[in-house]
């Protein structure tokens, strides 16, 4: 598969009080192929949303760069790329302008990009409303008249309107009722097939990830700790953190498997990350080496890479 988006060694730092620096994302390299869904998973504060914002052009990387369709994204190439990279947010209540009718919301990316005429944009909005499974009379109504799930459908319709190739979905399901989640998930799958889309799917819900994605990238404290095909990752996680995340998924009717216990404590502050492997303070397998030397991401197989000195299953 051809590469659609390349993330090359991207870091995002924020200045904090006292001249310190929050290292939200640190030297992450990833790629997304055309038609592929890549999940970005991790705890709150792992930098997954920040990386998503960088991909959506909402946050300029401090260093490193992005490539889209083989072209490096710079100030001159971003404007054209914006119509092909869209974003869906977590909170469906904040994502839609309460004073805009649905038709204007959906057609907004077209208006901003000056695509088509007012007539053709409205026609496109009507078409998309039907595609995402909303009633046609939704067009002239306002966001407050819709439920969370319906609003998320509207947000998806807006993201689809300029015919993008990549949608950054920032925890699009986590604010929804469980019964609605599967509907929206199915909708996302459906439009992916009809529109040949790639997703960068940001989530902390591994059950949802298991349903939708092709590959999974695990972030911890802004660092990429493991990237693997979904099947490989769920069957044999290589990083101790990934293992802990998988173990933390509650399962009905099954006792929680404990591989050396779940990890303890909180994620350290990105203001002051631990030396060496950032996970060593919470890792059940940590040794002296882990606190001294940063592990580099290395391939275990064609489909799995890990940044760990002592990956699982290698001993």
């Amino acid at each position: 598969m051809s590469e659609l988006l390349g993330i090359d060694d991207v870091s995002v730092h924020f200045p904090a009080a006292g001249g310190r620096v929050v290292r939200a994302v640190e030297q992450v390299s990833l790629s997304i192929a055309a038609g592929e869904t890549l999940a970005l998973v991790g705890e709150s504060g792992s930098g997954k949303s920040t990386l998503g914002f960088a991909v959506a052009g909402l946050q300029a990387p401090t260093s490193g760069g992005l490539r889209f369709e083989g072209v490096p994204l710079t100030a001159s190439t971003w404007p054209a790329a914006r119509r092909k990279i869209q974003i869906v947010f977590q909170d469906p209540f904040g994502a839609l302008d309460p004073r805009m009718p649905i038709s204007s919301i959906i057609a907004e990316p077209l208006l901003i990009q000056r695509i088509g005429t007012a007539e053709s944009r409205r026609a496109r909005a009507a078409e998309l409303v039907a595609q995402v499974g909303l009633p046609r009379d939704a067009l002239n109504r306002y966001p407050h008249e819709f439920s969370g799930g319906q609003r998320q459908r509207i947000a998806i319709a807006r993201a689809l309107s300029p015919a993008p190739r990549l949608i950054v979905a920032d925890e699009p399901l986590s604010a929804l009722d469980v019964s609605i989640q599967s509907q929206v998930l199915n909708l996302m799958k459906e439009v992916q097939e009809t529109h040949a889309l790639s997703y960068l799917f940001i989530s902390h819900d591994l059950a949802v990830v298991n349903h939708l994605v092709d590959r999974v990238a695990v972030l911890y404290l802004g660092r990429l700790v493991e990237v693997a095909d979904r099947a490989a990752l769920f069957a044999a996680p290589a990083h101790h953190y990934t293992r802990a995340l998988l173990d933390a998924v509650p399962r009905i009717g099954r006792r929680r498997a404990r591989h050396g216990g779940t990890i303890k404590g909180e994620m350290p502050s990105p203001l002051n990350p631990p030396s060496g492997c950032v996970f060593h303070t919470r890792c059940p397998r940590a040794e002296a080496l882990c606190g001294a030397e940063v592990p580099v991401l290395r391939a275990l197989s064609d489909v799995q890479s890990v940044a760990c000195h002592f990956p699982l299953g290698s001993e």
Partner: protein
Amino acid sequence: MSEFADVAIGVWTLRWRRFRRHRTGMASLFILGVLVAFVLAAFPLQYFMGIDPDVTDLFARFDPPSAQHLLGMDEAGRDVLIRLMIGGQISLLVGVLATLVGGIIGVLVGVAAGYFGGRLDGVLMRFTDGMIALPLLPLLIVLGAIDLTKLGFSSDFAHSGAAGFWRIVVIISIVDWTAIARLVRAATLQIRERDYVRAARASGGSALYMMGTHILPNIATPIIVSFTLTVGRVILFESVLSFLGFGVVPPTPSWGNMLNNAQELVTTAPALAVYPGLLIFVTVIAVNFLGDGLQHAFDPRSERTP
């Protein structure tokens, strides 16, 4: 919904529809239309009836209403009706213009400071604070005393009534934009980090697009409230300025200075206070309800869905 429910309608059409359904808003629009027609009727009245608003007739002081002078005469023997009309032209024009000019300056400063933030915000807000800190009365006296001929205006213009009128508009605009600027800045700060603004930014929307399409409609309510309150205040403020001796100076009438003059006569000729007072009252009420209607037009949540 209508039979065209599945055809997308423009946002301004939807706003106009909501406004039309707001009864008091529509009624206020009508009343303001009547007021404008009333004050414009001064021209035919002057032309056909030959009534001059400034000609005094000391034998006709406090004359009761007659066929020639429908509302009677004032303390200097001038026709009250024509003076109300001419005064209304000035009061309404000052009220609307000064509110709009000052309000637009305030909105622009507030939105720019709130949206861009950073150093621009610092500079604009310190400037606003400085304006607020200036004592009002000395400032007014200084502004009122500026010699327009020194600013390059012709002597004819500097001493005309038009110069006094524009002086009033400029003075009020200068002192009145600060409150709305702070209000708008605070409201903008709340909106600018919303996800829908982010989504538009991700699509490549310019700063002007964000402000016009997302920020202003979402902060329309406080802006409209502030504008409508200002109109009434400005109409009365104008009379204070006249009293201090600049702007609209007697004998040129305005509702404000007619009301002021009538205060000492309120026991002998109460009607002279009642007419301008009533007109100011109706104007302020109508503007407030018009503001209600506009808020309703901008806020889809204010409408109960049928």
